[in-house]
């Protein structure tokens, strides 16, 4: 059932408006907080109000303008988009609270919070994009809106990182635009509503090139190796930015784009026929293993997180590339699971940095005594990444493995297991350091982070467990993901 | 070296151009498209339709009057442009920065009494001739431009022999701004009259009871062009001379 509804448009528009208001209130802390939080809450409410309908298979749509038939800006809320938008907007609320605490003494706060709000507005627009052009449009806007956040420090290092970020993502954008144009030429439409708009008539070779263009384009943001270079550099941004954007909004936009391309532009059938996704799966597997290995060598906390992100993102890509329903389910659900886990970790890293000033892992000895709750949250997230049952990470790995076996690709199950081991190898030492290694001079007194930092961290950690243990409860992300998968595979 | 290169390039460009012109319809033949397509109507009916026995004038002022309207605007533009570039040039030059070497203005050349005498003697005749050219432009060679330019040249000659101040008295400061755009205004006047009485902008009566208006209108335009041309040519000269 398709319903014409204002809400798909309202969600991004409202946060856009709030972003502009945040710019305009300038340096008045109360109103800035009011509008930032208010926007987050209102948008979350709007998004959630559509949830029951989407679960029942209703699709909400709203189109703003059409340039020519088939090309225009339109929004359409289906299960996949809903999934992504719920993740991003609930995390936005949490991160905003965190950011208010974190950015207390930073400069240029109006700019920061303004662009922060704009980013999330564009993320929701991206999630609700009705066609490839709208998707591209918000994808590019996201790039632009993130740039000021990345270079927030305005140090030469930050500027360099910002430049790198732009070069990577805009180049990716060019590939997407090119792919979009070619798609339009071949398919005559750009709609993302169906199960694939292209067909074999364009020739296998051309389609392969097109697929490659899309993968390269979205792969930049999804940080598939070797297109990941910008992500570790972008860690110079303030932690909330790294948390929300480099764990959720930006990188997931890339992964989300790949999902859209695989399921809605090409469609499962066509890709099976073309038999090209194994290359993507191989690239993803390579990324998973290599990035994990690099992460092992990183001492800077945030850089290790960054490489972990790179590895985790490829789970999603891998799941999409396997082209089996269960793998797809694992991929989609991993969007949420990875987001909550990674954001917990970023919050922890940020809290530690703000409270103790430590940014490197070897300095963290005994920190668990000083900040037990924070490190407790970290432990939960780390277990999630390793894939211990009852945490979120287990759910996605479980389905990914099932999906891989379904398709008869044992090798990828091995990759997932190796990845789990590697995850254990780079997260557990931190836990060990924090709780069990007491060097002389360790503060044994509890000195937790400020509540505005701690509470969001704990909430996210709680979610990690919730997503893992109550995954099958209706209304949880898994049910949404299932709705999406059932549609894409025509089940 | 550079020159040789340029010459080589130009020679290279000459080849297709010359080949191109060799394939154009032969010059002078009455069978050319230039002579068989549009022009016959001008030659056959121009005198009656457009009201000027001189067909060139008929084309300039009537058939393609709008072109001429543009053309008088071009020369007016030139005047405004020259004034815009030169007005108070020295003040700005001094304000911005001194030139590396201030050019010394050449002292005015003494004018021989013979020249002065001859210019003075000839001046009225030149003026009369130019008025003749303007008035009879539509029946004989001549026209507003030609007449106007002659007056302009006369004014320049007078400026040269007896100084600009003298010449400017012929074209006083008070009315000069009104005379400079005379051609544009004359066109506008006739054009709007045509718009009001007949049809589109710049329409001339072709037949009927209004046809008597044709000659006066042509004359108005011719005089406008003449006066405007003279004023503009002289004004440009004065502006360049630096006395304006």
């Amino acid at each position, binding site marked *: 059932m398709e319903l014409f509804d204002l809400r798909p448009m309202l969600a991004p528009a409202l946060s856009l408006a709030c972003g502009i208001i945040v710019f305009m209130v300038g340096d008045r802390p109360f109103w800035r907080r009011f509008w930032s939080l208010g926007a987050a809450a209102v948008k979350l409410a709007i998004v959630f109000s559509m949830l029951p309908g989407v679960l029942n298979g209703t699709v909400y749509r709203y189109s703003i303008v059409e340039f020519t038939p088939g090309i225009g800006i339109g929004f359409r809320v289906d299960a996949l988009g809903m999934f992504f938008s719920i993740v991003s907007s609930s995390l936005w609320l949490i991160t905003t609270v965190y950011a208010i605490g974190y950015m207390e003494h930073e400069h240029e706060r109006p700019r920061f919070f303004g662009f922060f709000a704009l980013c999330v507005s564009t993320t929701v627009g991206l999630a609700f994009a009705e066609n490839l052009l709208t998707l591209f449009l918000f994808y590019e806007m996201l790039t632009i809106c993130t740039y000021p956040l990345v270079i927030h420090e305005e140090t030469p290092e930050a500027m360099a990182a910002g430049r790198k970020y732009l070069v990577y993502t805009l180049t990716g954008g060019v590939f997407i635009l090119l792919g979009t144009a070619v798609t339009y030429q071949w398919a005559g439409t750009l709609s993302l509503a169906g199960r694939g708009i292209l067909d074999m008539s364009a020739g296998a070779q051309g389609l392969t090139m097109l697929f490659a263009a899309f993968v390269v384009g979205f792969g930049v943001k999804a940080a598939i190796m070797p297109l990941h270079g910008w992500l570790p550099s972008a860690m110079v941004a303030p932690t909330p930015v790294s948390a929300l954007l480099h764990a959720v909004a930006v990188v997931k936009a890339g992964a989300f784009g790949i999902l859209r391309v695989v399921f809605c532009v090409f469609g499962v059938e066509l890709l099976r026929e073309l038999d090209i996704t194994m290359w993507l799966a191989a690239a993803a597997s390579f990324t998973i293993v290599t990035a994990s290995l690099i992460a092992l060598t990183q001492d800077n906390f945030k850089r290790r997180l960054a490489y972990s992100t790179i590895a985790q993102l490829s789970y999603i890509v891998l799941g999409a590339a396997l082209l089996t329903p269960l793998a797809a389910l694992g991929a989609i659900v991993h969007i949420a699971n990875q987001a909550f886990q990674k954001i917990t970790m970023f919050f922890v890293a940020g809290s530690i940095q703000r409270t103790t000033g430590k940014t490197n892992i070897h300095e963290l000895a005994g920190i668990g005594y000083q900040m037990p709750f924070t490190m407790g949250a970290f432990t939960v997230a780390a277990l999630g990444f390793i894939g211990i049952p009852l945490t979120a990470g287990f759910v996605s790995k479980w389905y990914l493995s099932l999906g891989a076996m379904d398709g008869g690709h044992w090798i990828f199950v091995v990759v997932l297991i190796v990845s789990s081991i590697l995850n254990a190898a780079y997260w557990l030492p931190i836990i060990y350091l924090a709780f069990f290694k007491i060097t002389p001079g360790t503060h044994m007194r509890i000195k937790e982070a400020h509540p505005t930092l701690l509470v969001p961290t704990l909430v996210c950690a709680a979610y990690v467990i919730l997503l893992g243990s109550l995954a099958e409860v209706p209304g949880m992300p898994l049910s949404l993901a299932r709705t999406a998968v059932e549609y894409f595979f025509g089940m | 070296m550079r020159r040789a290169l340029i010459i080589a390039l130009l020679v290279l460009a000459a080849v297709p151009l010359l080949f191109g012109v060799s394939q154009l319809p032969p010059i002078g033949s009455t069978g050319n498209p230039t002579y068989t397509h549009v022009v016959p109507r001008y030659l056959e009916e121009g005198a009656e339709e457009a009201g000027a026995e001189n067909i060139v004038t008929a*084309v300039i002022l009537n058939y393609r009057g709008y072109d001429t309207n543009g*053309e008088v605007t071009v020369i007016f533009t030139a005047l405004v442009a020259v004034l815009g570039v030169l007005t108070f040039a020295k003040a700005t030059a001094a304000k911005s920065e001194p030139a590396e070497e201030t050019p010394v203005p050449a002292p005015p050349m003494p004018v021989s009494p013979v020249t002065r005498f001859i210019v003075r003697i000839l001046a009225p005749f030149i003026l009369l001739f130019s008025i003749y050219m303007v008035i009879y432009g539509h029946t004989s060679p001549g026209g507003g431009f030609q007449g106007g330019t002659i007056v302009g040249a006369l004014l320049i000659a007078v400026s040269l022999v007896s100084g600009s101040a003298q010449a400017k008295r012929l074209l006083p400061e008070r009315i000069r701004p009104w005379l400079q755009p005379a051609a544009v205004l004359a066109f506008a006047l006739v054009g709007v009259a045509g718009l009001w009485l007949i049809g589109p902008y710049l329409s001339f009566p072709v037949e009927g009871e209004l046809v008597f208006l044709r000659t006066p209108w042509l004359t108005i335009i011719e005089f406008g062009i003449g006066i405007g041309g003279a004023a503009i040519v002289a004004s440009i000269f004065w502006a360049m001379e630096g006395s304006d």
Partner: protein
Amino acid sequence: MRVLWTNIDYAASVVLFLIGLYAVIAKGNLIKKLMGLNIMETAVFAFVMATGIVTGGDAPILGKGAEPPFANPLPQALILTGIVVALSTTALALSLIMRIYERHGTIESDDLWGVE
């Protein structure tokens, strides 16, 4: 070649045009450049006028005693306009050159590059 001979007027104006272009490009002195421009203008006028030539044609002034064939009046009308345009361009160019000389003390383009 025979055809080119018939159209020798055109050919001459083409050559003149290129000579003018040579002066515009190759000459350093701004006045000479302007002269080159004027040569080009003249060449184009000659070219357009040549399209209106009619062998044995009379001036296109009707009235008593006028006998066809007449010369083509249209190019004459066009070129009258063209001349005015050329005059205007020249006037503006000259005043620019005057200002350049006043300000920089030279009108050799080689010397003027340094100014920029």
